[in-house]
């Protein structure tokens, strides 16, 4: 099976990735922007999840909270993804071998799939979220899964620099 390592070595050797890696400002500023965007994005997702599980904002209809927060979640998700990809490009060989980075990607993918499944399954009945007990139960389950997966994503992200499992 062909190895992906040469491709990552090529990426790491490019002039712009080298310049960003060696710049005193490049990597720190991209990483800080990444963290700021992900904090706001995940923070708003968690607010939505707390409404889903019935722990906060219970006076507000679910559909309304979902509809009003979604554009802001996307407005921070896009730059956090872009800066995340950039960070990987700057140092691909380091991340590629890091188990905690791979764990973060798995949690991220699962959180994304959970959100997608939830939207596809329940979004058509969005107006009935607050009345239909069956939809409410599904929403709660999706909320708990989302809270857990985003928490694990954040925690594993912060642990990446430690690379405990070499």
């Amino acid at each position, binding site marked *: 099976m062909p190895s992906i390592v040469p491709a990552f070595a090529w990426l790491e050797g490019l002039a712009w990735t080298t310049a960003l890696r060696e710049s005193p400002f490049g990597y720190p500023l991209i990483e800080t922007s990444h963290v700021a965007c992900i*904090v706001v994005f995940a923070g*708003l997702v968690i607010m939505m999840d707390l409404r889903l599980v019935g722990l906060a904002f219970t006076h507000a209809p679910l559909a309304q909270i979902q509809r009003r927060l979604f554009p802001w979640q996307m407005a921070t998700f896009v730059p956090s993804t872009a800066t995340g990809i950039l960070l990987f490009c700057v140092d691909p060989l380091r991340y590629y071998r890091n188990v905690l980075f791979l764990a973060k990607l798995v949690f991220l993918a699962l959180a994304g799939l959970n959100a997608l499944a939830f939207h596809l399954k329940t979004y058509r009945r969005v107006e009935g979220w607050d009345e239909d007990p069956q939809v409410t139960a599904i929403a709660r389950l999706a909320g708990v899964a989302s809270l857990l997966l985003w928490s694990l994503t954040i925690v594993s992200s912060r642990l990446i620099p430690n690379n405990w499992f070499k």
Partner: protein
Amino acid sequence: MLLPFFQWCDGLAISQAYRDSTYLFPLTQALHLLAVTVFVGAIVIGDLRLLGWGPVGQSRASITRSAGSILLWAGLAVVLTGIPQFTTNALTYHRSWLFVFKMYLLAAALLFTVTVRQRVAGAAEGRLPSWVPKAVGAVSLALWIGVTISGRLITYYG
């Protein structure tokens, strides 16, 4: 002036335990970030409502009141996970201008949140000119994002 306090923090048993452990400090950092995320989420949902971009079907007061209990619990978790990180590296922070800047910004953000923001958010709808809650939401957002960014930059330039 504060050097003896920073030295005392550095010498605490908990600071030594954190320095001796491979896992304690990184795990506390990770939980700190998680607590910060929840805290910022609760701030941002209130600020978006103040700006007129959040859940506008609900009153400003009801959104910020509901976010208030989250702020309290998440804030407590931020402090509890922040203290051991501070004491472990107290002597480094003593020399860090970014740390000092973050602490001033944090104090300003806290003061603004419990005074101006709370008062404006709790005011009856229509009682204030429409630009007032918008301005308060924008200032609050800038202050808290500033705290988050400066906190992260300490790692690189502190």
